[in-house]
Structure formats: structure tokens, C-alpha cells
């Protein structure tokens, strides 16, 4: 038996090789993605669709781990001389990638080398601002664009005697709703959040047009520092969470995406999460849910401002032996990904925002946003809301590490082991040490 099955396997693989051999003549383009689940499956399918649409290039989409692991693998591959052609990197990794000047080729430059047309103005303004250079060139291509939204459980709202069609707009309203959800015993936890630093530091600051670093939140120079210590609004927000944690009107759900499970299981009635988290909620939640914009403090001057961008973008690596043909393949695949057809399917399925104006308009024209209430919320929050000096995002090196420093210090505050002010003071001190270390090596 084993011998027969081995023979059969050999025969099958020979056939597979024979079938695949015409494609061997095509130039191979390695694409590393950091997504799993629905998003990852769809992205792999886009690769296959592209391969079927032409015969000069063959895109190989692979998953090498979550963003940080994948980045480490790409760093090792780059040092060995064979990095992937394209790598998807999340927002927080952007500062590091921008600092790696010799390792990446700006996307605008890739198209120039390939001799293909590329217009950065095709992309929605917040994405262009976040991933662009002052001269308008794009460093990386925005792909999965998201922003923070508030998901809430309508069933639990009704159970607590709250108006299920009136989600909280401000933090005081959210706190009241959360307390009511707890005191009426409608839910075990009122509110929780994913991506603590992204929501409570980055998005929160943008929402109130408050800076959390010097040099235009790090966008104007590597010598920027964090300014968290004398930031009353940021301290107040952490203190709010610490106070709410005591009666579980807020319940901390862990770093990254972990807290989404607490919302989906019905344990927590409200969740701040990336709009890209919609797909999983739509698939798994066994209750009616609604979507609202990120709450704000009404007494903050001019609030609410726009939230800022999240998600990930596509970076192109340079390597000593890259050919023009390879850059042309990369440019063609990127053109395919930013086409209205692909972009609209991507946005509709996953809950990410359309990254291009064209796809956005196409979705508007077919009435997608009116037919699917709630899907316009991230767009209203990101694009239509008021802009200020501090709503264009930030750019810091070693930011993934600084996010974890923030997580660690705020966790200590939530445990009751330090005050909110201390948490932010320590984050600033440790974060600035990391920024100085980055400044030293990034030249």
C-alpha cells in the first residue's frame, strides 16, 4: 500500500509539474501578506486572478506570519539578498520602512522604472497623506485602509433599556451606556477595545486634533520626541478606562485583536475596532449590531475631528539583482490591485475602505452605502469629518515597540499599580529612548 500510494503521489506531482511548466517561463513575483482568514483568502485569489489574466508574470502570494514575524522574515531575506518583491506592512511599521532607505523602492519610483503610468492622486487623500512624501510621491501603495469605529450590540442595548438606534456619540454618553449595561445586568462588560495604543493614543489624538509628538507627530524629522506627559486629554482618557475597569463597564481584552472575541461572544456590549474587523463580526456575531463613529470629548475644542488611517500598505523591496522585468511585473500587479473592480470587491467583502477615489465613487454610484447602513461610518469619520494639523497621522520609528511600551504601562495602570499620569510619563520616557536609538541607526 505505501509503495503504491507513493507511486501515485509521484505520478500526481509529475503531472502537476508538467501542467505548471508553461508558467515557468513567466517572471515570478513574490508577494508576502500579513493577513489570515477571509482577507487572506481573498488576497490569494486576487493573485490567482492576476495570473490567469496574463502570462508574462506569475504572482506567488504567501503568508509568512503576522506582520511582525513577516517583517522579521523579510529583513532576514533582504540581508541574504533575496527579499520578496512586495510586502504588506501594517500602519505602525511604516516609520521603520521609511527609515530603511536603501531597502525599499518608493512605489512612484517603481512605476517610473517600469515605464508605467501611476498617479498618486488616484488614492483617497488621508491615505495619500499618510504614505506619501511632501512632493506627492507615494512611498508605499495603500491597500487595506481602515479607521477606528464603534461596534455595539443592539440586542444588549435593548435589554438594558437603551435606545438601540442611538449609539453613544461622546465619551460621557458611552460611559453612561456602559454603566447602564452593567447596572441592569444586561452584559458582563459594557465596553472593550482592540488595539489599545492605536485606538486610545493614535486615533484618539486625531479625533481631538491633539499632537502626541513633536515635529508634526514625527513627520518632519527623526529627532522628534513623544509628548504624553503634559497631555491632559490623553491622561484623562487612560484614567477613564482605569475607573471603568473597576466595575467592568470597561473590561480590558488584551493587546492586538483579542478583544474582538469578547464582543462577538456577547460578553461586551460595545467594542472599538478597526473597520476592517467588520467581516468577522458580520460572519460570527449571533445578534443585531450597529456601527458608529469613534466617540469624542465634547469639551475638547473643535471636536470631533477626523480619525486617521489604519490598516496596511504594500512596500516594494529593492535587491541587487532585481531586473526591470520584475519591476514591471510588480507595477502591473499593483495596477491590477488598485483597479476599481478589485478594490470594490475587496472593500465590500472585508469592511476595509476603498483606497482609491475611483472605487469609492463606483461604490457610491451603485448605492452600496445607502443599501448597507453603517458602511459609510468609517468614510464619514475618515474623509468627511473636520481636518486639523494633527489628523494626518504620525511617523515614528520603532513604533510597534513603542505601542507595546504603551500597552505595558497602561496595563499596569489598569491593574491599579500606577496612575494614568505615570503610565503616560513612563511611556514617554521609554518611548523617547527608543526614538533616540532609532535616530542613531537610521542613517
Amino acid at each position, binding site marked *: 500500500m505505501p509503495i503504491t500510494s507513493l507511486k501515485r503521489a509521484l505520478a500526481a506531482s509529475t503531472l502537476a509539474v508538467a501542467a505548471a511548466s508553461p508558467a515557468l517561463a513567466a517572471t515570478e513575483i513574490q508577494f508576502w501578506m500579513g493577513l489570515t482568514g477571509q482577507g487572506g483568502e481573498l488576497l490569494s485569489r486576487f493573485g490567482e486572478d492576476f495570473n490567469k489574466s496574463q502570462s508574462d508574470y506569475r504572482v506567488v502570494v504567501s503568508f509568512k506570519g503576522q506582520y*511582525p*514575524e513577516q*517583517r*522579521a522574515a523579510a*529583513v532576514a531575506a*533582504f*540581508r541574504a539578498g533575496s527579499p520578496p518583491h512586495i510586502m504588506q506592512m501594517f500602519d505602525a511599521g511604516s516609520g*521603520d520602512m521609511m*527609515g*530603511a*532607505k*536603501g*531597502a525599499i523602492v518608493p512605489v512612484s519610483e517603481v512605476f517610473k522604472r517600469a515605464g508605467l503610468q501611476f498617479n498618486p492622486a488616484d488614492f483617497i487623500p488621508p491615505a495619500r497623506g499618510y504614505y506619501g512624501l511632501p512632493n506627492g510621491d507615494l512611498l508605499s501603495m495603500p491597500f487595506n485602509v481602515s479607521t477606528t469605529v464603534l461596534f455595539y450590540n443592539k440586542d444588549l442595548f435593548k435589554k438594558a433599556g437603551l435606545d438601540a438606534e442611538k449609539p453613544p456619540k461622546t465619551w460621557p454618553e458611552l460611559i453612561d451606556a456602559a454603566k447602564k449595561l452593567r447596572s441592569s445586568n444586561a452584559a458582563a462588560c459594557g465596553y472593550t477595545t482592540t488595539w489599545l495604543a492605536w485606538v486610545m493614543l493614535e486615533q484618539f489624538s486625531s479625533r481631538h486634533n491633539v499632537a502626541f509628538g513633536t515635529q508634526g507627530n514625527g513627520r518632519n524629522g527623526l529627532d522628534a520626541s513623544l509628548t504624553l506627559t503634559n497631555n491632559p486629554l490623553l491622561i484623562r482618557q487612560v484614567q477613564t478606562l482605569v475607573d471603568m*475597569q473597576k466595575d467592568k463597564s470597561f473590561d*480590558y*481584552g*488584551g*493587546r492586538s485583536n*483579542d478583544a474582538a*472575541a*469578547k464582543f462577538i*461572544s456577547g*460578553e461586551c456590549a460595545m467594542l472599538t475596532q478597526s473597520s476592517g474587523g467588520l467581516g468577522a463580526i458580520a460572519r460570527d456575531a449571533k445578534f443585531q449590531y450597529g456601527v458608529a463613529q469613534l466617540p469624542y470629548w465634547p469639551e475638547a475644542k473643535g471636536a470631533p475631528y477626523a480619525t486617521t488611517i489604519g490598516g496596511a500598505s504594500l512596500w516594494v523591496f529593492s535587491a541587487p539583482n532585481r531586473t526591470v522585468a520584475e519591476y514591471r511585473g510588480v507595477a502591473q500587479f499593483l495596477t491590477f490591485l488598485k483597479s476599481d473592480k478589485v478594490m470594490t470587491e475587496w472593500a465590500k467583502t472585508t469592511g476595509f475602505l476603498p483606497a482609491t477615489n475611483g472605487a469609492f465613487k463606483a461604490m457610491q454610484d451603485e448605492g452600496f452605502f445607502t443599501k448597507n447602513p453603517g458602511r459609510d461610518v468609517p468614510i464619514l469619520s475618515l474623509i468627511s469629518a473636520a481636518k486639523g494639523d494633527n489628523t494626518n497621522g504620525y511617523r515614528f520609528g*520603532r513604533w*510597534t*515597540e513603542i505601542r*507595546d511600551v504603551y*500597552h*505595558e*504601562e497602561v*496595563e*499596569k495602570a*489598569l*491593574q491599579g*499599580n500606577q496612575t494614568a499620569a505615570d503610565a503616560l510619563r513612563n511611556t514617554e520616557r521609554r518611548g523617547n529612548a527608543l526614538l533616540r*536609538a532609532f535616530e*542613531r*541607526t*537610521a*542613517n
Partner: protein
Amino acid sequence: MERKVVFPQVGLPYLLLLPQVSITLVFFFWPGGQALYMSVLQQDPFGQSVQFVGLENFRLVFADEGYLQAVWRTAYFSFAVTVLAMVPALALAVMADRVVKGGTAYTTAMLVPYAIAPAVAGVLWLFMFNPSIGVLAWWLKAAGVDWNPTLDGSDAMWLVILASAWKQVAYNFLFFLAGLQAIPKSLLEAAAIDGARPFRRFVTIVFPLLSPTTFFLLVVGLVYAFFDTFGVISAVTQGGPAGATETLVYKVYKDGIHNLDLGGSAAQSVVLMVIVVALTMIQFRFVERRVHYS
């Protein structure tokens, strides 16, 4: 009188040694040397600006309050894991030693956890103790325990200690069982005739004769807790909350892979290298000498 085997050709012994030597060189000396080399450099992740900084990385490591806390945390964690992996293993081995029928099946069943990958073991425990969906977490809550490893540092620590110890019980069990079976039956019978009850026989005869095994397992257990528990911690807590489960080896991983601080991470792994060399020397010096007792 010593008898030496002399190979007729000069090349053959070297040829026979070659596989082992090359594996050692490629998988131990090369990476070890790389770590030493990188520990005296500071560089950006992509290796575009590299500068020699001498012992600066080591100075930074030891000046970091977080590192010193991690040293104590690791000592606490390793000691707890080792003890919790040895005591139940000894108890189970003593009982297995008495099983007359089906002893092999019982022993085999005991060994299964050892074959489970650390990350899988971690996920298993994570699910059982997950505050939202875990069965055991539900029982704990029903019993009035405020179980929350997501935010409570000591809950998280106990979770990774239990998961790590559970995996190692099987290994310890096997060695204890072998040790027990090597104890001459005549000694035990003589003691029994003299009127010593089972517990007294265990305290005065079995446990002293097991001491080389116990010491060996202590050292192996410490090395395991120091270095091999990374998978469990990575799967269960990622070093959190607030760094409560960040051990030295997890910190090496986090600083090297997540934070891409290659110099700092290399300096930390050199420190770990020194620790493991010290532990191995202790083991050679005290265990290997006393292992022939029968």
C-alpha cells in the same frame, strides 16, 4: 591495563567524526559565533548602517530595569516549573512502579504530553483557562475566583507555569521510573523484613538512591524552563500583561524578532549562553561523578 583501538588508516576516524562535528559547527558554533559578533554591533534592521560599539549593548541590557526584573521573574518561573514538574512526576512514578498488570500501557499513556509541541500545549491551556470561553475558567468563576489572566499578572504567570510544567511531567516521570526500577529489590525486601513501612522505605532508601536522578532532572528542568518554554509563553500571554510573564528567553525573541533590535537581542542571548554553560558545568561536575551508585 587499558586497551586502545587503533585504526589502521588516519582518515577513517576523522571521517566517522565528521557528521557530528559538522552538525555541531553548523548548528551551534556558527550561530553562537554570529550572536557574539552581533552583540558588539549596533545596526538598523536591514543592515545598512552597522557600527562597532564594543560592550555598549551589554551595558544597555544591564542598565535596563526591565531586564533585571526579567532575571528575577525567570528565576521564579523556572523554579516553580521545575518543582511542579518533578513532584507529580515522582508521585506518578512511584505508583506506576507498583502497577503489575498493564504497566506498559500506563507508562505509555503518561508519556503523551511530552510529544505535544510547546505551542500546542500552550493553546490547549489557553482555551481551558480563557476567561470568556474556557471550561476551567468557568469553574473558577463559579467557585468565586476572580480569574483574569488577561489583566492579572499573577494569574497569567500561574497559567504559563502550569502549562510549562504539565508538559515536562512526562519526561521526569520516565526518568524517575527508570531510577526506581534500578533500585535493588533486595534492599527494599530487607528493610521490609526489618519492619519498615512503605513510607519509611521511601524516605530512607528510595529517595536517597534516587538523588542522582533527582539532581539530573533538576538541572534539565531548569534548562527546560529557561529556554524551551518560549513556545508556551508566546502562545498564551506574549509576555503580558504588563510584562508579568516576560522571561529572559521570551525577551530575546521579542527584542530580536518583533522589535528588530538585533544588537540588544544578541547581547541578551550571549548572557543566556553563559548561563546555560554554567548550568551544564554544574551538571557535569556533580551529576556525572555520582551517577554510578549501584
